[in-house]
């Protein structure tokens, strides 16, 4: 294995600092979390390969967003049949505007971490099961002896509460 040089170190630092933002950016352009992750994987490899050509004195996120946007577009074309893919105009607007929101994203992430702690235990564990352990809603509903739709209702309630909490916190801090 090779030594990490200064540049690799810089890359790691920048990349890990911004990874959630990149993922969120992709998420707003693509139909599902799964799609966003797939593209993120592509993006991370590309930016590492091209990192030699990146001027560290310039805006890292802007550079990454351009690459991410392009990769998301390629992915969209491949999966254009999915009915959840937004139309081109919406896509372009979301991308243009999303590129300006890096700071808002990190504030939201920070707020989310705080808000998660305020959730009741059962809601937190639902998020954990669905989002982190990636349990399919159908399987979980079966396990919990409930219906998928009532599970979705619970999820919806939870997300709504979290979302409101995040917005409230950001407003307070702003």
């Amino acid at each position, binding site marked *: *294995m*090779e*030594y*990490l040089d200064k540049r*690799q*170190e810089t890359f*790691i630092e920048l*990349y*890990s*600092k911004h*990874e*959630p933002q990149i993922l*969120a*950016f992709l*998420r*707003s352009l693509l139909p599902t*979390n799964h799609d*966003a*992750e797939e593209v*993120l*994987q592509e993006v*991370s*490899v590309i930016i*590492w*390969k091209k990192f030699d050509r990146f001027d560290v004195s310039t805006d890292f996120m802007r550079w990454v967003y351009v690459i991410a946007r392009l990769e998301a577009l390629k992915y969209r074309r491949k999966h254009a049949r999915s*009915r*959840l893919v*937004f*139309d081109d*105009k*919406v896509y372009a*607007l*979301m991308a243009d*505007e*999303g590129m300006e929101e890096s700071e808002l*994203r990190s504030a*939201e*992430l920070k707020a*989310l971490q705080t808000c*998660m702690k305020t959730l009741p*235990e059962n809601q*937190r*564990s639902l998020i*954990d*099961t669905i*989002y*982190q*352990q990636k349990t399919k*809603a159908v399987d979980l509903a079966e396990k919990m002896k409930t219906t998928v739709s009532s599970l*979705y209702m619970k*999820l*919806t309630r939870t*997300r*709504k509460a*979290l*979302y*409101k909490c*995040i*917005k409230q916190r950001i*407003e307070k801090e702003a």
Partner: protein
Amino acid sequence: MSNLSDEDFELLESYCNESISDEDLEKLEQKLLEDPEFRKEARSFLSMDSFMQMDQEMPIPMDLIEKVKVEKPSQKSLFWPMAIAASISFVAGILVLYAINANKGPQVTSIDPIENESEIKASGFAVIDKVVNVEWADKDKTYVNGQAIGQETLKLKSGIVHLEFFCGASVIIEGPAEFDINSSWQGFCHKGKLRANVPPAAHGFRIDTPKNKIIDLGTEFGINVGEEEESVVVFDGEIELHSKGKDMKLLTAGKGIKTIGTSQENLKAIDAESFIKTEGLNDLHKASVQNKYLKWKNMSKKWAQDPRLIAYYNFEHENSPFVHNNGTNSKNNLTGKIIRAERVDGRWNNIEDGGAMEFKKPGSRVRVNLPGEFQYFTFAAWVRIDSLDRDWNALFMGDSYQIGEPHWQIHKSGKLVLCVRKYDRPKDYHVLYWSPKIWDPSQTGQWMHLASVYDPVKKEMKHFKNGELVYRAEIEDFFNPGKLRIGPAEIGNWGQPTRTDPVFALRNINGRIDEILIMDAALTNEEIKEIYEVGKP
């Protein structure tokens, strides 16, 4: 405050659930196209949807390495992008791991950093069964009870060593002496006094001296090699004596021969009592252990009062499910709770008080809670490993492994590893400091002293085995977490069942821990050496 109406929520929610109707989808797109405020909220909402995949509270980076290893077993060459890709495939993907390997720079270690060793062989021709009051001639070449040795020379200024050769012969050497182990059937006595006991299975066992060659035919014999003269005496059975320039002689019980220069004479009487016997050695050994134990106990009391102590558990026998913190300076109750771990004999075999904890059973652990903020860490423990069964074998582990919390453990490769968490997620840097190999199966069941010192002030991380520095690395600012913490933690295991997930990693160490010192100080090499010297059985 969010401006989303209930209907807006519903659109976004059903979109996220992938359950949105075609009609609503159209509505959603229309709204996104027309309303910039809604687009902004939609991005926030979808971002939240992606953030939620990130583990919020209980990051388990070490597990991630294991998973990465399992999934990407053969991709050693393509190192960087692979490492990223691999970590990303676990969604959290936020983890970039470093390792600093012995004597090398930092490395990315999502890929197995350990060279493949197809089979680790125990090496040696003999085992040191007992070391009693020995002063070694060379301070760098000392041996301990239970140690396997290969082709080596033992040099004793004084004291007694009991060797068990793998052929079955047992040899008691009395210092001053110099003795080579040449194979599991053969030794060379340069000087000193020894008694060999050779069972039938070891017939043919041979010891050479400068002037003679003694081949055993099933017996017990003694040798005394001085500057000028050598004597060989047979207590029981029969030996072949081959002397330079002389015919081979058979010597039977009660006979002895003295060689001076080139001449030989029969000994009229043999003094069997002047060669120490196994039984006598046992008593001596016991007395010497007792003596060392008392010395250690005295020092132990001194250490317990050290103001730099965070906690000190010496596991002396007591009859309760708790382990007492021997440290006297803490205002907090640092008593540990024993879970499934067993109280067993420690390194002072046969000494009633001298207890240790055994973590053989899965799930066994000692739970402690060490609150506070610290500037340094020193961990020092006596450890006896029976085998390294797990990928990671815990010594002392912070429960939640948050910023500034330590994980001190032994990797299955036999390397001692300390890491201290640097960042919280999403920037999940931490560095693993790998010692060189400190254990292999030939050391099964042997007590050894391990210590690791983490000094963010001097920017220095050090590992020690048996009082000797075996590894040193610089702590780069990049990895320096600043304030250190412990909080709830475990000795001998790791893996609290998390809130919703009853599955926990098996990290219990298959072996024993006897005495663990945790200090808010960077102990010096000399202090570590002293702890080892005073504590060694």
